[in-house]
């Protein structure tokens, strides 16, 4: 079985462990063994070390990558932010030997050495390019036929394309997540704000009001243009923003609709017939109804 080092980050294990559970349960069904990266820390988030000192950032990131190096596996991250941080760090280290030497000096304090032998992938990359849509399709017990999905790939999976091993054909009009949803039978009609920012992260912590405006713009584009049955993302930050901040917008009376939100592997888990109480159990925007619809008899394949 092919192995990948599961880099969890912060939000997934602490705020959305049902996403973590969906990784642990769906990947073995696709022939991938999830290897824990024992002792992994924060990537570190953009607002922390990267905003203070480049080498401290690279030391913390490379420490995380060395966990995969010693397990002789490549990394897969579930969070776009973590992916962006680790992929950029790796790119800098691998393209600048001087920088790598400096960072390895810092890392030696933790008795570690970065070599560059492990690649950094995102869960979406592994699903799309390593596993492939055929296997995903074959693993499904339920189909999403005639369900409309608004996909949210998220920024850090798109840009800067120079640091990525797996690239979208056109990062401004991404198709990977659409294809992953098609593999489950869903429709993914185009909406105009596909590539735009959800307003999570730094923007939300700096100014919640503006971050909510940014999200509202995106939600309105989804609702008005395609009226989706659900929003599907492969970014845990986007996931939290769409789920939690959507509720905030409703509470403020800014929007009058509720669109269920899933991390892609949660949806995949549901299609594989896994237990929603484990793989899709925590949300602020209700999704029980759509879960029941997905795992209904009519949708059973064969």
């Amino acid at each position, binding site marked *: 079985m092919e192995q990948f080092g599961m880099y969890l980050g912060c939000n997934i294990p602490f705020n959305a*462990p049902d996403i973590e559970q969906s990784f642990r349960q769906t990947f073995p069904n696709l022939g991938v063994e999830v290897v824990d990266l*024992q002792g992994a820390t924060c990537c570190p988030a*953009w607002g922390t*070390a990267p905003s203070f000192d480049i080498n401290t950032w690279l030391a913390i990131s490379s420490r995380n990558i060395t966990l995969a190096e010693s397990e002789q596996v490549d990394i897969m991250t579930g969070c776009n932010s973590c992916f962006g941080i680790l992929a950029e760090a790796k790119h800098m280290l691998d393209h600048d030997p001087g920088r790598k030497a400096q960072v390895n000096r810092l890392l030696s304090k*933790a*008795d570690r050495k970065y070599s560059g032998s492990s690649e950094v992938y995102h869960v979406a990359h592994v699903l799309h390019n390593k596993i492939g849509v055929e296997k995903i399709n074959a693993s499904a017990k339920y189909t999403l036929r005639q369900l409309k999905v608004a996909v949210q790939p998220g920024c850090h999976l798109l*840009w800067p394309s120079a640091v990525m091993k797996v690239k979208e054909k056109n990062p401004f009009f991404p198709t990977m997540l659409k294809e992953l949803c098609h593999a489950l039978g869903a429709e993914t009609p185009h909406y105009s704000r596909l590539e735009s920012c959800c307003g999570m992260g730094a923007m939300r912590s*700096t100014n919640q009001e503006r971050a909510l405006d940014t999200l509202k713009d995106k939600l309105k584009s989804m609702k008005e243009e395609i009226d989706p049955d659900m929003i599907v993302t492969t970014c845990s930050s986007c996931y939290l923003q769409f789920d939690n901040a959507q509720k905030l917008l409703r509470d403020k009376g800014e929007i009058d609709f509720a669109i269920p939100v899933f991390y892609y592997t949660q949806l995949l888990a549901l299609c594989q017939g896994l237990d929603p109480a484990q793989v899709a159990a*925590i949300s602020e925007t209700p999704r029980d109804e759509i879960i029941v619809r997905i795992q209904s008899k009519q949708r059973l394949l064969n």
Partner: protein
Amino acid sequence: MQTVNLTQMDKEGIAEKVIAMGGEGLLNCVQCGACASVCPVARAGFSLYCKNLIKKLQSGYMEEILEDSSTWACQACNRCTEICPRDVKPSEVVFAFRRIQAEELAISTSAFTPLMSLYETGHAVYNKRSKELRKKVGLPETPPTSIGDPKAVAELQKILDDSPMAELGIFLNLMSRKQEK
């Protein structure tokens, strides 16, 4: 007077500083505006974002903008860097400026809690309710990360203790508490 007398602007060392902090493309910028046109921070109406930050830094502004926390709203989405026709890498200029702000402790207040949490637990984001949530979905209460791994936290703290971040004194309380232990 709102008029800026450019001959009286003291640009000494500003560009050099930004470049040294990682904003290497600063002087390539011709202010075409492409970065701003797709910047979520600019689109959301924050006062300082890639394009005008670059112009101000090129013009010799520093103290005047040091306290503006808008730059901390940058998501590092890097769309600007992807499309910049001059290879400025605008997001890196924004981060270089943030690093200069950080040196002066002109840090967005929202940045402190994650920093403290990072130092203490290895995670910038930590939710105390997580044990309960994890149990609910059938996972062990503690994930296999630094949160349940004192050795991992110690490794991280060794990196942080000698970093320029520690020199700012932001971890002082936490460091002394660690020593008491």
